[in-house]
């Protein structure tokens, strides 16, 4: 279980300081929790704070009761936090197989790597020895990024806009990846998304706007309001 207590984040913006997050408290204890909200509301900042990439200026983070606020990215990863980047990173020289093996924390056989690639809809034979570099399309990179967190299969997985750049791959496939992942890990999956189809599988939905939690409840409590009010730009089709 992940617990955020009174998280605040202030970023330097030229000479001034800009408040990105203000007193955000929430828990992630269900299989699927979605965070949604308008662009610029602080959702991705929150995901980075959970992964340890950014340090909150206020508040505390607990994972399974342990205060992890002061822990590094590596230490949090080793305690079971996985994080799928919104913009996947390119590596000259590292192959898809290398990256997925690093994610798994052990040398994988070709058939194990193929298994993860197949789950994200990539024909393994075409990709396994490819470098994770600019020769891959944004959509291909995004699916490989998802395969890296699949290979980790840890307690808490954070996806930052997994639907962005997925191109021809269907949402249904993405959702089945989440479901398989949960079946395997029995952990918690936190998804930052604008997509109604992804919100539809969430057990809980948290709406963030202006750096604050606007709504936090079950899907049944929150989603109808989002759809009726079309809290767009929170929701995009």
């Amino acid at each position, binding site marked *: 279980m992940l617990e955020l207590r009174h998280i605040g984040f202030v970023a330097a913006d030229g000479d001034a300081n800009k408040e990105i997050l203000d007193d955000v408290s929430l828990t992630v204890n269900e299989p699927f929790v979605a965070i949604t909200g308008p662009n610029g509301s602080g959702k991705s900042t929150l995901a980075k704070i959970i992964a340890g990439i950014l340090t909150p200026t206020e508040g505390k983070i607990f994972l399974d009761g342990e205060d992890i606020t002061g822990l*590094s*990215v590596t230490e949090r990863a080793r305690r079971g936090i996985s994080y799928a980047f919104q913009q996947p*990173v390119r590596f000259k020289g590292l192959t898809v197989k*290398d990256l997925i093996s690093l994610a798994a*924390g052990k040398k994988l056989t070709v058939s194990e790597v193929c298994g993860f690639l197949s789950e994200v809809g990539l024909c393994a034979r075409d990709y396994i020895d490819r470098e994770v570099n600019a020769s891959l399309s944004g959509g291909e990179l995004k699916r490989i990024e998802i395969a890296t967190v699949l290979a*980790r299969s840890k307690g808490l997985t954070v996806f930052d806009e997994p639907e962005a750049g997925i191109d021809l791959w269907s949402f249904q496939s993405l959702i089945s990846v989440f479901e398989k992942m949960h079946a395997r890990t029995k952990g918690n999956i936190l998804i930052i998304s604008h997509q109604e189809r992804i919100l539809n599988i969430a057990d809980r939905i948290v709406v963030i706007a202006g750096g604050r939690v606007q709504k936090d409840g079950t899907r049944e409590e929150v989603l109808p309001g989002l759809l009726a009010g079309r809290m767009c730009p929170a929701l995009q089709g």
Partner: protein
Amino acid sequence: MDELEKMLLLEIADLHKVPDGAYNIRKNGEADGRRSTPHIRIEPRRDAKAGIDIFVSGETKGESVHIPVVITETDYKEKVYNDFYIEDGADVLIIAGCGIHNCGQATSEHSGIHTFHVGKNARVRYVEKHYGSGEGGGENVMDPTTDIRLGEHSRLEMETTQIKGVDSTVRTTRAVLEAGAELVIREKIYTHGRQYAKTDFSVQLNGDGAGADVVSRSVAAEQSRQEFTLRIDGNGRCHGHSECDAIIMDDAKVVAIPALAANSVDAELIHEAAIGKIAGEQLLKLMTLGLTEQEAEEQIIKGFLS
């Protein structure tokens, strides 16, 4: 051959024992073993210079020649000339390389001057590795020169690697290509400490349909210095591509000076160059997989130079 010499041979030529096929092992200036085969003849030079002549007949298909050089003496300096005569239509793998283990305080130095005369339609894969070791204060210096003359529709692939222990190197490669000939070069260099590495490529694309692809990847760490210079001359309907990509770390310095010269309206020449430190987001991605920052750095470098 003692354990140290065996270790050097393993590093530079992946050799656990005397290789199959033709070979010439040079140890501290002396021939330590030589074998010719029906298709590949190795002979002492006809002039007074140190080195060998290697004749590869046109009948050669998929055979290999190993010509490693091992130096274990301190204060030993040599210049060795090896000439390769590859007949039309031959297909051969040549594995060269130099390993120096210098325990003393004085400089040991090997300069290998390799000249390739590649006949029409021949195929050559040329692999060379440079490796140095030794606890003494003496420097390991290697200044290889490679001269390549590619006949019509021939192809030479050169893989050149320097990963460890070479304090100073100036690597000069010159190539002249006739019509339809192809040259592929893959260079990998890692320098650290106070090492210095200079690479100088010069390629003349003389014939129609000639093509060259030169890719250099390097990592400069600590206080090491690297210089990369390259010039491709397109003198006809040809295509040339070069890429130099360097990761810079710590207090290292890297200079890249590429040049393209089109002397024909039909020459197509491209150069790409990039020098930069390891991207922070690359480190972060691997750290989110549970690696420490140092482990992430090692993996990124290993991949980059693999």
